[in-house]
């Protein structure tokens, strides 16, 4: 089932990608080509097959509840595009 331009817009919003119309159209084409290929697994008999949610056969990998020294604040903030008074600064939160 092909993906509509509206759906492309919706997915772009979900993924926080600000795409222009040309990109949207190009991506619509590429996505449809890929989705077209996805049909080949639709008819595979997967009754009773557990999905591989994890690639390793391990369970219960845990760490003991011991605190380590945290990183120094200035190294934490070193790559911040904007920071002030020890905080990461972002534009005002506007709820849409």
């Amino acid at each position: 089932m092909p993906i509509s331009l509206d759906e492309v817009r919706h997915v772009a919003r979900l993924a926080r990608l600000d795409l222009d119309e040309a990109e949207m159209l190009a991506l619509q084409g590429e996505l449809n080509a890929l989705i077209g290929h996805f049909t080949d697994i639709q008819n595979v008999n997967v009754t009773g097959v557990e999905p591989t949610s994890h690639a390793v056969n391990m369970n219960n990998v845990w760490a003991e509840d011991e605190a380590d020294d945290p990183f120094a604040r200035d190294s934490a903030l070193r790559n911040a595009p904007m920071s002030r008074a020890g905080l990461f600064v972002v534009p005002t939160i506007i709820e849409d």
Partner: protein
Amino acid sequence: MPTRLSATRLAARLAAKELGVREVAQAHLDRIATLDATLGAFLTVDPDETMRWADAAQAKIDAGEAGPLTGVPIAIKDNLCTAGVRTTCASRILESHVPIYDATVVRRLREAGCVMVGKTNLDEFAMGTSTENSAFQVTRNPWDFDRSPGGSSGGSAAAVAAEMAPLALGSDTGGSIRQPASLCGIVGFKPTYGRCSRYGLVAFGSSLDQIGPFARTVEDAALLAEAITGHDRRDSTSANHPAIATQALKSGTLRGARLGVLKETLGESTDPRVTQGVERALDALRAEGADVHEVSIPSIGYGVTTYYIIAPAEASSNLARFDGVRYGLRVEGKGHIGMMEATRAAGFGHEVKARIMIGTYALSAGYYDAFYLRAQQVRALMRRDLEAAFQDFDLLVSPTSPVPAFKIGELTSDPLALKMLDYCTIPANMGGFPALSLNCGFADGLPIGLHLMGPVLGDERLLQLAYCVERALPDATGRPPLP
């Protein structure tokens, strides 16, 4: 010339103090300075940093603590975090990013006394099969500068093939170590999923990614694998196993080894020159006593589809952290949402956006069951079929790439065609199997890679048999037409 030597030979000469670590490092930096303007394998070269590593290695040698790789130069794919050294993932969104910590494998390289000569080019965020998706530069194949070195670890493969370093690290999600190794005529190895810690590898497809070595010989690759693998408590998916052991590397034989040739990989989609090259190599292995049979595993035909659902789905989530808040590029926008949307639109290249979109779509409400869940089920089927095959065979064999190195720009207009090139390598990632590519011949002067896959945790045996295969194919060794 130190740059011609294998890592093993170099390490021996360095330990014997016939050569100095700085001297060797400088020789490689000089070669990079000469060749890389053309080849474009490196994104970052920092000679001061290299010499710091070199001095640390020399100190080890002087203290009598030399290991098998002490003082050996190594190139590192630029999606592995190196503290204090720029790590870009070949993306504008991380163009100036300097990590504040070392990846576990990087830490282990320091402990082994390796000497980092630079960070290598890749397809942006490891998404691609040609290194043409890098935001910064194109990397050229040392065998033919008009051709691609493969991807996504094209820079690392080209660096080793062109003798700019004897060793390199890459990452492999659907073939990104093995395919460039094949196109560049060198050895590329992907360990069993979980044997090499992913801590510090910028994640692409978390259930598929593995870090692995590039080298010009199997022995070198095995030694590097030993240095970087082994349990790591910082990675929950790290297998509870020690490092890959190399002491039995040279004590194997092809006599009686059961090799299963994957029928589905030698069909119409495979370049006849590649098929011919592989079949000639198999004849040589038969002559050494290997038991070579064809085996058909039809479900591997689903590999490309399942891969292009699962990997982008995981990637769409892994790349959500690039939002302009804590690090990386920030582009202003209206409010916090506008800022994030503008940042990601400007920071990500087209292929990355496409994969994020398909991945988001495959996970979204209404499509999760039909796409992601189903793909994971088909993946389970593939794994089951391959595991069954390993009851009858020691190794499963195929070409690594259905075509030799293609021209730069040849396939970029057909993104789907590029993706289809992964069908020989993808099954190993689907099941977490260890797999290796080594050169087995030439097609009009271009390398042909032979792909060997073993059962889960069968890394040692795989390397041991690969060593024998390498010895059985002496004509497959060659060096690109470079100074």
